[in-house]
């Protein structure tokens, strides 16, 4: 073991604090945990996309020796009378009630000690449904001919959804509007107007630790161990469902085997609690990988974008219509619709902007946030479109972006003045790394090459709060209590580095307490690249308070000003022995002004902006459509990196994940049924799919960030898809407007371009 490093902690490429536990197989994950007396739950799921439940026959399942119980939604109602949950809408029943809304919705739960036995019993359950017409496409859902829910039931969590309470006859869970200037007038007087429509497919997080929750309900309190990115929200929501004060609900979260947004807010926790209440024993609900496909996914989207330019190539107007396919339950979709929707016009300086962003219910598995909170879908469309506009104007795509780029001091479409974001540096760095000014060899014969770039802008979700505690023990050792969930992004290490920086001690000597709502204070959630900024400030403030108390203690015991007395000695001097605690707390909630509901305008849309982009060089085989990424450059502005090595792996990992969504990942459906719900049929990037790759965090400093830093987890996803599509057009002159960019899609486009379109077979 190497000796702890004293001195400056911020900027160190320190190995993760939990590295040893992870390489030795001893790190704890909920999925492998078990409690004494625990029952295992296996679920019987809906086989129809939309229907009224006529009957559920559970007799054969109940007769299986060893089955403890079989429960339905009606049983759940006996212990939780109003068993609907969700972060934005209370639309999701713990087990289906009266109706099923998608293929795969949990309808009945079998409990047994042996999971195989429970699974066998599930196979013996039969349900009859009166099938109802179903709607799968987000544009069709907007017609409201088929209604997924009879009435909207917004949660009280978010103020801007209140007006939707009790609304009937719609699938639209939120219609976010932004209006700046007069887009219609500007289009009328524009020299040229371009309009295109882009689509993204349904993909999923596929964290290798599948979704899981273990609940142990007792009459005076419930303990939930869960793989959750939002322990505080789980606590609040379970308390609400039980009609309890929060302090009777304890939520424990060990390390997560990946999250990427798939473990946000509330997933299986309510079900585990309800089943534990019914069984009066601990219950574990652990999904298998195929079940995750029926639980949470990424929003497919349709984005119609229209741009008007003047005779000098300046963008004068942009109109964005975005339809988000949220599936059967809203989950966090309305947040994606608004919080990302307001950036749909891209990182450009445009006086006249109109954005409509619609969250839509459909009869598909629910969709939530996936590494980017909607931004990758938006950047895919606006950066493909921007490239097409540049090419139509016979402009260099880089120059055209430079001319129109939104720069510091200028108003964003929300009216908020852009500041503190190195978007131009990101764009320039990508171009420099690609040698954009130099001639490019486009290849010849059947192998053609092309290059493309793309940049995106994101605002952080607001307003949100983080609270942290720093506790100095009698021997001077430091423990930090914070609710940020380390799911692989390295937050524990980064937080310890920031605390170590303040207290002038090696980060590796600092203990991060595993998340447990009985001891770790409130945090809004580990999501949207918010934690390093928000929780970073909270731990910094807590450490500063502890530091001030240490200084006061030194004065109290008569130490001279600027004394360097070791902490342990100081405490001993105060208490006469190794005793006591020095506790600092920190709460951070940044300023924010909510947008005007009619215009989306606000003086302060976000505490900080994030910028990132990618450049790609590709080679296309014109005989087969086969595509090879020859080079992928990913550049982000994450402010001042707290841990450069972890930042590098986050950039690389995010870009490779997005590469999968760009080139091959896609959930296939037949009548609402997922037909490739397994790793055998749903391909994700493997070790052979890694292209030659360069990653860079540009030199930047976030002036209101902790130590100049801000989040990084999502950033490298932004530009990958459009950069590659733009490179394909540069290579072979065809434009793909729908993800994924498969060889078949390229080949079809090449055939269509040659006036020999292929049929559907």
């Amino acid at each position: 073991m190497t000796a702890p490093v004293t001195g400056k902690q911020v900027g160190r490429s320190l190995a993760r604090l939990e590295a040893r536990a992870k390489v030795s197989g001893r790190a704890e994950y909920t999925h492998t945990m078990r409690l004494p007396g625990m029952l295992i739950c296996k679920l019987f799921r809906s086989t129809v996309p939309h229907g009224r439940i006529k009957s559920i026959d559970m007799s054969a399942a109940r007769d299986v020796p060893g089955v403890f119980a079989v429960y339905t939604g009606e049983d759940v109602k006996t212990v939780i009378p109003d068993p609907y949950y969700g972060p934005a809408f209370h639309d999701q029943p713990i087990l289906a009630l009266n109706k099923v809304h998608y293929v795969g919705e949990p309808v009945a739960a079998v409990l047994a000690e042996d999971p195989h036995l429970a699974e066998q019993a599930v196979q013996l359950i039969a349900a009859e449904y009166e099938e109802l017409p179903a709607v799968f496409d987000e544009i069709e859902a907007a017609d409201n001919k088929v209604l997924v829910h009879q009435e909207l039931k917004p949660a009280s969590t978010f103020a801007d959804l209140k007006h939707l309470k009790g609304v009937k006859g719609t699938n639209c869970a939120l219609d976010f509007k932004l209006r700046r200037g007069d887009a219609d007038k500007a289009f009328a007087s524009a020299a040229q107007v371009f309009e295109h429509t882009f689509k993204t497919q349904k993909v999923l997080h596929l964290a290798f630790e599948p979704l899981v929750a273990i609940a142990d309900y007792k009459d005076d309190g419930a303990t939930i161990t869960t793989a959750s990115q939002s322990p505080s929200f789980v606590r609040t929501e379970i308390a609400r469902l039980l009609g309890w004060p929060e302090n009777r609900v304890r939520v424990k979260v060990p390390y997560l085997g990946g999250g990427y947004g798939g473990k946000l807010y509330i997933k299986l926790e309510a079900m585990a609690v309800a089943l534990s209440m019914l069984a009066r024993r601990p219950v574990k609900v652990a999904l298998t990988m195929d079940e995750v496909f029926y639980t949470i996914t990424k929003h497919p989207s349709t984005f119609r974008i229209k741009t008007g330019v003047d005779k000098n190539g300046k963008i004068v107007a942009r109109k964005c219509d975005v339809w988000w396919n949220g599936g059967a339950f809203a989950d966090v979709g309305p947040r994606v619709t608004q919080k990302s929707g307001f950036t749909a016009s891209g990182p450009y300086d445009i006086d006249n902007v109109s954005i409509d962003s619609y969250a839509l219910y459909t009869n598909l598995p629910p969709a939530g946030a996936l590494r980017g909170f909607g931004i990758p879908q938006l950047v895919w469309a606006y950066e493909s479109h921007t490239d097409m506009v540049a090419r139509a104007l016979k402009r260099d795509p880089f120059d055209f972006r430079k001319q129109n780029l939104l720069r510091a001091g200028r108003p964003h479409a929300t009216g908020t003045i852009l500041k503190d974001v190195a978007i131009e540096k990101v764009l320039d760095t990508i171009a420099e790394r690609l040698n954009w000014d130099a001639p490019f060899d486009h290849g010849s014969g059947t192998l053609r090459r092309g290059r493309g770039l793309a940049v995106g802008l994101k605002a952080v979700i607001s307003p949100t709060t983080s609270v942290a505690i720093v506790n100095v023990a009698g021997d001077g050792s430091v423990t930090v209590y914070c609710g940020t969930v380390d799911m692989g992004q390295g937050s524990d290490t980064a937080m310890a580095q920031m605390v170590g920086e303040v207290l002038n001690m090696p980060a590796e000597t600092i203990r991060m307490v595993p998340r447990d709502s009985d001891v770790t204070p409130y945090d809004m959630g580990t999501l949207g690249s918010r934690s390093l900024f928000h929780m970073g400030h909270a731990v910094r403030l807590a450490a500063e308070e502890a530091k001030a108390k240490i200084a006061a203690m030194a004065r109290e015991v008569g130490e001279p000003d600027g004394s360097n007395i070791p902490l342990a000695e100081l405490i001993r001097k105060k208490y006469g022995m190794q005793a006591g605690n020095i506790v600092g707390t920190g709460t951070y909630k940044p300023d924010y002004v909510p947008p005007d509901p009619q215009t989306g305008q606000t003086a302060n849309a976000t505490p900080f902006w994030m910028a990132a982009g990618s450049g790609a060089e590709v080679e296309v085989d014109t005989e087969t459509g086969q595509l090879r990424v020859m080079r992928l450059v990913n550049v982000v502005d994450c402010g001042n990196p707290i841990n450069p090595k972890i930042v590098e792996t986050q950039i690389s990992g995010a870009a490779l994940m997005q590469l999968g969504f760009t080139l091959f990942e896609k959930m296939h459906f037949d009548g609402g049924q997922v037909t490739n719900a397994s790793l055998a049929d749903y391909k994700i990037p493997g070790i052979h799919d890694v292209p030659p790759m360069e990653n860079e965090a540009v030199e930047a400093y976030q002036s209101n960030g902790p130590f100049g830093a801000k989040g990084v987890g999502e950033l490298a996803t932004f530009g990958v898809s459009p950069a590659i599509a733009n490179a394909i057009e540069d290579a072979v002159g065809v434009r793909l407007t729908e993800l994924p960019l498969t060889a078949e899609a390229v080949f079809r486009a090449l055939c269509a371009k040659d006036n020999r379109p292929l049929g559907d077979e």
Partner: protein
Amino acid sequence: MTAARTINFTLNGRAVSAEVKPHHNLIEVLQGQFALSGARESCGQGLCGCCTVQVDGKPVSGCLYLAVFADGAEVVTVESLGSPQALDPVQQAFIEAGAFQCGYCTPGFILMTKTLLARQPQPSDDEIKDYLSGNLCRCAAYPEIVNAVKLAARRNKTG
């Protein structure tokens, strides 16, 4: 379901026995009866490598490997590597190269790397990638994993 039977095998160098049913896989037995959770199920189809364990020196997917087949065999899991004083050089290399994020797949990659380096102490990049292509990492720490294997191989040579 059918009755359990007793199997005897060597687990990380110790003689052990377990009561297993015919349908139990090795992961269930390691986790349920020996509290070893370094090998863990993810895809459940033998495709991701998170459940990798060695049986008689060969890496197998523990989620598909029926426990009864381990009767009389020598089973090695990630927990056998290193000591409280010092990590195994492969574990150390994974830390230094930053070759993981969430860590869920890491024990599988480490056991595969141990097997690779036992067979081929100085693998080329292509050999590394081919040998590890049966292990997946959703955090996509692949570039760092290749670096970790190379680092461990280099130390093999010098050490």
